[in-house]
């Protein structure tokens, strides 16, 4: 096993990543993982949450950046802040809830230090004890430490623990499509979170999940059973009721699409490892609900712009390394690595503001059927991920193959495209970004 030294000094990530393959240490080595946390997750922009998770001053929600427990708050002036969830006194976490309303201050459960929602210290009990010491309330050490940078794009907020680096929009580049596509589909141009977060743990490395999101080779194999089951029920529904089965069955039966047809999809790679997989579900039926929605959209945007918005055909956008977004169904999965072999996914869905209720139901059905803890789809994905992790921890071979269509990834204006939907370009592309991050000592 190749090991990265603890401080990363003198270590070259190119020892682990070649243009067409990656060493298993990238997935299975604790020290490589620790370095990923430090050099990728503690430096890049990481998804914090949607602003509608903290609609009112005093609201907060918690999440992880790498190993750091963070809290996203809405302060009295309405601004959003991201702070380390840590009391500067003795280090206690200031809240252990996922979401809540703190009122005007966060109060430490240990000694009652109080902080405004922007993180500034508000009150310390019996402050006389600090007279003559160097701890004064204007000392930043007396307040909650903020994330180095916090920025939002169309209501989706990110934080970075590194003071330097590209601004959020520059960093997102082509991955802005995730949020543009989702928000533009709302007649009011905004989405609102549905405050139920499904959390599912994968017993595998975080990169395996991201790679799978852009892997058009696997669906008809991995999800063949669920796809075939749904396709059969679609037929039985039609035969027994005379009606077409509801659209949600198509979310599953689409997986029966044979491998060769996935070839026609395109994938694109943007700087910093972000990727897009084109859509394949054809989610634009001509039923009355869709027509009503399209009429509402045309009133909001005009015919030409509506056509442009609804004609956008994206399945997944990966915001590397932290997010997988399905804009046309208003879902996202945030990726929180817990260890080399353990990854938490936080799964959210959104309402399109101004869209009729049946359009929300489509998003909801996908959330319930594909993304909930009873998913018939991810049951087989997570099983594969676990099997991969087991194999990568073994000494049965050192390399993971990304040779499919290697050397055939055209790049134009910084955007890499695949020559076929089945190309392993996205995996090579993500590892290029990985090598860049990991190589910066």
């Amino acid at each position, binding site marked *: 096993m190749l090991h990265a030294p603890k401080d990363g000094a003198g270590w070259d990530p190119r020892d682990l990543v070649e243009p067409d393959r990656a060493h298993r240490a990238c997935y299975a080595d604790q020290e490589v993982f620790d370095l990923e946390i430090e050099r990728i997750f503690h430096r890049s922009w990481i998804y914090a949450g949607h602003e509608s998770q903290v609609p009112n001053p005093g609201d907060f929600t918690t999440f992880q950046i790498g190993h750091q427990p963070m809290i996203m708050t809405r302060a009295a002036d309405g601004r959003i802040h991201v702070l380390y969830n840590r009391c500067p006194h003795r280090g206690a976490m200031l809240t252990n809830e*996922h979401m809540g309303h703190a009122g005007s201050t966060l109060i430490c459960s240990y000694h009652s230090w109080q902080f405004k929602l922007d993180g500034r210290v508000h009150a310390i009990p019996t402050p006389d004890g600090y007279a003559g010491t160097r701890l004064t309330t204007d000392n930043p050490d007396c307040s909650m430490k903020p994330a180095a940078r916090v920025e939002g794009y169309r209501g989706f907020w990110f934080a970075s623990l590194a003071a330097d680096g590209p601004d959020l929009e520059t960093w997102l580049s082509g991955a802005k499509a995730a949020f543009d596509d989702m928000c533009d589909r709302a007649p009011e141009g905004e989405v609102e979170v*549905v405050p*139920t*977060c*499904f*959390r*599912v*743990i994968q*017993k595998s490395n975080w990169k395996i999940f991201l790679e799978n999101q852009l892997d058009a080779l696997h669906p008809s194999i*991995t999800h*063949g*059973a*669920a796809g*075939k*089951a*749904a396709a*059969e*029920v679609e037929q*039985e*529904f039609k035969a027994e009721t005379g009606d077409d*089965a509801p659209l949600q*069955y198509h979310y*599953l039966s689409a997986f029966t699409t044979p491998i060769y047809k996935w070839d026609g999809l395109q994938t694109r790679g943007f700087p910093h490892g972000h990727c897009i997989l084109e859509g394949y579900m054809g989610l634009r039926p001509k039923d009355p609900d869709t027509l009503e929605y399209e009429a509402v959209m045309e009133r909001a945007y005009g015919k030409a712009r509506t056509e442009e918005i609804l004609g956008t055909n994206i399945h997944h956008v990966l915001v590397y390394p932290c997010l997988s977004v399905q804009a046309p169904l208003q879902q996202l999965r945030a990726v929180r690595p817990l260890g080399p072999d353990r990854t*938490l996914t936080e799964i959210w*869905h959104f309402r399109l503001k101004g869209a009729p*209720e049946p359009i*929300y*139901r489509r998003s*909801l059905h996908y*959330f*319930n*059927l594909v993304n*909930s*803890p*009873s*998913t*018939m789809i*991810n*049951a*087989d994905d*997570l*099983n*594969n991920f676990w099997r991969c992790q087991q194999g990568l921890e073994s000494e049965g071979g050192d390399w993971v193959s990304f040779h499919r269509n290697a050397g055939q990834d055209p790049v134009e204006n910084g955007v890499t495209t695949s020559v076929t939907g089945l190309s392993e370009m996205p995996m090579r592309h993500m590892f290029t970004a990985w090598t860049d991050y990991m190589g910066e000592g």
Partner: protein
Amino acid sequence: MAPASQREAAVADAVPDRAEQGLLARLETQWQVEQLLTRQAEILDQRRWSDWLSLFTSDGHYWMPADPAQTSGEGVPSIFYEDRWLMRTRVKRLEHPRAWSQTPRNRTSHVVGNVVVESDDPATGIVVARSKFHVVEFRLDAQRYFAGSYRHTLVRTPDGFRIRLQRVDIVNYDGPFDYVLQFWI
């Protein structure tokens, strides 16, 4: 032989009074509900899917809310919200030879108790019953534990009870699920 008056009194004693009749009817309902819950637990543990589907009315639903404050599964996020068509889909997937995560199959053991008949409406034939479940699941050398409350809305039919709605409030509804739930708890 006892005098006629005494014999009449003994016969009268053997006929339950109204209070006793009510008790017997309640005990019978309680017994029937417990029988159904026990049978349902066995059906799940034995993976008898056609028996599972036939436990439900044609409009029946199996619902595991995402939040105990929810009052209906319509239009809200749920861990499960399945009608018989979706249940049929799940069964077909479980039994498909290439349902990869079903090799090896997961095994379960259900225990149901604390059964309370909440209401019994003779006019509609609808009985509502609450109970508690404990489930152990074994898969890939690991055991998981699930617990929570059932609330069954049952309909009396000539063939016994059928389930119109099975509400399943799992205690860890908002916790992280280590892997997923492949079939009904």
